[in-house]
């Protein structure tokens, strides 16, 4: 039935496109590294040390992954709670990105932790409730479930499970609110993870406001990610989009750009308040201070300004590129907190720099994400409404 028609006009099915070849190579290398990781241990793959127990698998795969997957809760909250129905077409792609993002985060954790099969231990064997990592774990696990349920209608529509689909759709509001609560908790807790190490994180980045910073910046990341992702999808999956989606696209970019500009302005303000609260001004004149100013001015203040200009001038190209700049800024921020400003007191020789194999695994995981994303959007009604469920949000 429909499945066949989708496949029939799927021109990505050609196996040897440049993308497929590169992705194939990455996957093969990734699998080899996976074998290495699970036979020879972290020492053979990573540059982690007793001083630096968390590298890019946490700094990028976990912290950045979770922040960039915030699009799901931001978009669904905007549409279902704040009633901004005009952005409805952005919900499904955002939820799918979020779901994949979280799934990949969990996948990446399997590489990083020592005994991945024990990941459920904190919930079922012994609960370390004083740990912020417990909170992160619990919320991520629950939120992954929520995202899965939120995403499931698309799959059910594809599979033709009408009754189940309708049942899940009725839960939308509940799931959305639950999703926002969980996201607030774990997005902020990821920042709060570092609260316990004031002596290791450079004072410019360490702040009692870390949880707030992480939460607010995750909203920014989510908004920017929706803009960025929609512009990419528009380029590569245009044929999968229905007219409604295509018509809404610019609306989404403008609306989300405006929201991002406002949130960035707020984020900038609380960052400055944080510096003032701890009276850390004098650090700004050091090398780390210069780098902090680069982050704050170049990747917070500048995108804020550019988003505002872009929205005022209805300049979609500018908004798109600003989204990229903002995402880079979020990545830099997470890297700063977890790696660059972490262990700032150690001599250069003891500092961490990832090995190519760690980077390889991270690229491998991102590639898997892209492949699965492509698999899903070319089959399931993500960029379009399923003909049978038109006009039934």
């Amino acid at each position: 039935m429909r499945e066949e028609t989708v496949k029939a006009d799927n021109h990505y099915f050609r196996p040897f496109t440049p993308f497929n070849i590169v992705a194939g190579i990455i996957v093969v290398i990734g699998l080899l590294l996976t074998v290495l990781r699970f036979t020879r241990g972290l020492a053979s793959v990573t540059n982690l040390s007793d001083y630096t127990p968390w590298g890019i698998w946490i700094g990028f795969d976990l912290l950045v992954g979770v922040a960039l997957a915030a699009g799901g809760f931001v978009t669904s909250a905007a549409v279902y709670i704040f009633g901004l129905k005009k952005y409805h077409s952005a919900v499904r792609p955002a939820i799918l990105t979020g779901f994949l993002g979280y799934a990949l985060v969990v996948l990446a954790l399997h590489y990083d932790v020592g005994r991945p099969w024990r990941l459920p231990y904190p919930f079922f064997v012994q609960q370390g409730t004083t740990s912020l990592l417990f909170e992160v774990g619990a919320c991520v696990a629950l939120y992954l479930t929520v995202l899965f349920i939120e995403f499931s209608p698309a799959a059910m529509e594809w599979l033709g499970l009408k009754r189940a689909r309708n049942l899940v759709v009725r839960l939308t509001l509940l799931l959305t609110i639950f999703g926002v609560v969980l996201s607030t908790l774990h997005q902020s807790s990821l920042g709060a993870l570092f609260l316990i190490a004031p002596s290791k994180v450079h004072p410019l980045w360490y702040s009692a406001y870390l949880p707030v910073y992480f939460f607010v910046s995750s909203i920014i990341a989510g908004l920017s990610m929706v803009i960025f992702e929609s512009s990419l999808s528009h380029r590569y999956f245009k044929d999968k989009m229905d007219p409604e989606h295509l018509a809404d696209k610019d609306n989404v970019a403008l609306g989300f750009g405006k929201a991002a500009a406002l949130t960035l302005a707020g984020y900038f303000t609380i960052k400055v308040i944080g510096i003032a609260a701890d009276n850390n001004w004098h650090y700004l004149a050091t090398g780390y201070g210069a780098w902090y100013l680069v982050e704050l001015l170049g990747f917070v203040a500048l995108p804020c300004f550019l988003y505002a200009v872009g929205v005022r001038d209805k300049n979609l190209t500018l908004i798109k590129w600003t989204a990229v700049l903002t995402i880079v800024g979020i990545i830099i921020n997470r890297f700063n907190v977890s790696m660059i400003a972490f262990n700032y007191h150690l001599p250069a020789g003891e500092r961490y720099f990832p090995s190519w194999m760690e980077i390889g695994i991270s690229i491998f995981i991102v590639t898997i994400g892209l492949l699965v994303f492509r698999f899903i959007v070319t089959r399931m009604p993500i960029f379009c409404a399923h003909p049978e469920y038109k006009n039934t949000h």
Partner: protein
Amino acid sequence: MKKGKSLLRGTGIFGGITILAILILSLRVQGVQQVPDPHAEMRSDLVMIDTMKTFGKLERSPVVFLHGQHTEALAKQNQDCSACHLLDEKNRRSYKFKRIKDTDRQTVMDLYHAGCITCHTETKAAGLKGGPLTCGACHQDNPQVASDRRPMGMDKSLHYRHTKTLEDKCEKCHHVYNEQTKVLEYVKGQEATCRYCHGEVTVENRIDARQAFHQACVGCHQERLAKNQSAGPDMCVRCHDADEQNLIAVVEDIPRMKAGQPDVVFIKRSPDIEPQATPEATPASDEDLLTRVPFNHKAHEEFNDTCRVCHHTNLKACVSCHTLNGDEKGRHVQLEQSMHKRDASQSCVGCHGSQQVQPQCAGCHASINQKFGGDSNPAACQTCHIKSPAPSGDPLLEPDDRTRAALLHESRTRVSETYPADKIPEKVEINTLADQYQPAQMPHRKIVQSLERGIKNSKLAAVFHREAGTLCQACHHNSPVSQKPPKCNSCHGQPFDNRQPVRPGIMAAYHQQCIGCHTRMGLEKPAATDCTVCHAKKTAP
């Protein structure tokens, strides 16, 4: 197009503000972090001219002024001090630049600017190497020179050389201020250290020590040099450079200063009682535990370079300021503290204690409780507080007070060696770590003799090591002096005994004692970590 332009402009403004902010911040901080350059040239004649400080906050950095360089340059042009330093109404050289007094800000500043720049220009015009003419060359923000100027002082050798050259004409230097006539005059018998009156800063018409010394010393030296008489230096480096200071001749066997100081005298306990006046009041009764202390003033003169070591504010007896109960004159330091305070360099105990850091003393003394002047034994007090013999009852036969003090002082026992060698065990076998090592053979007698050698020439040690066994007391501590003290393991047993938390176990007692003493005495061998030097490794049976 238009849209693009406005965007460009906006970004430009934003970027500009950003760069400006970073610049301002970094500049501000450059101002804050002014650290002296580690590669700076060291000069003893460096004067940082910051005179304008007296008129408020400095507008520019202090001027880097090398005095020696200027003196030399002026000498080449046949100019002397008068080129810069004027004579005041009393014909004394002012050590301010081209003025007698700091009048007001503008005048002084103009004086410097005009004076320096004119001279520099003229020198250059004359074809010589003139000084800088730009602001920053004098007001240097990051001076490449630093001062290693060493303070100079008059020790008793230098003082003796001066009295000899000046044929005991004390009035050449010493003076006192007459409150009535308001003039400086010389009063015989009231000579004292310059610093008693001339302090760190000028107070009213009393100039500070630095000015006073330069005026008096350099002035006199130059006067004499002009008359071709033998004279001291008039160049900065001769007095203030470390190497030059070592070249100053030191006279051995200096005759005592003639200030009427006593030889041996009882430490006065009250400023009112003149000891010699009432001989019958002075003999201490048996009940008086704190008997008077006979003090060998003469010997202390020999050991110290200046009177200031003890007489830190005047030449009077200690008790004139440090009264029994403390007084404002003595900053409420009581007489007892003035003698016993361990962390005061002027007190008896403080000064004697500072002798104990010498390697030959430190081995034992550093392990002795540092409170209570190194000795908590009440008997130790009697080393200084000597009981006098009961008076004979016949006033005519009684010696005067100073003689009594001298006799009493002479009566002290001096011990510079311990028991005879054959009474000291030669070797002591220590068998504590029998499970891992063979017994250690401690060269007991050798150690005692080495300690003896260390104190042989010390009169201080001879007096305070009261008995033959005192020397043994550092190792054989906490038990009475005895030729056969208890063995270590009669007190030290298992470690970490709750009932004796302070007392180390036997193994640690040995190691702490031996290694601690060796370290403090600076003995490099055997190394503390070279276990087998003391106890050979036990070979498997």
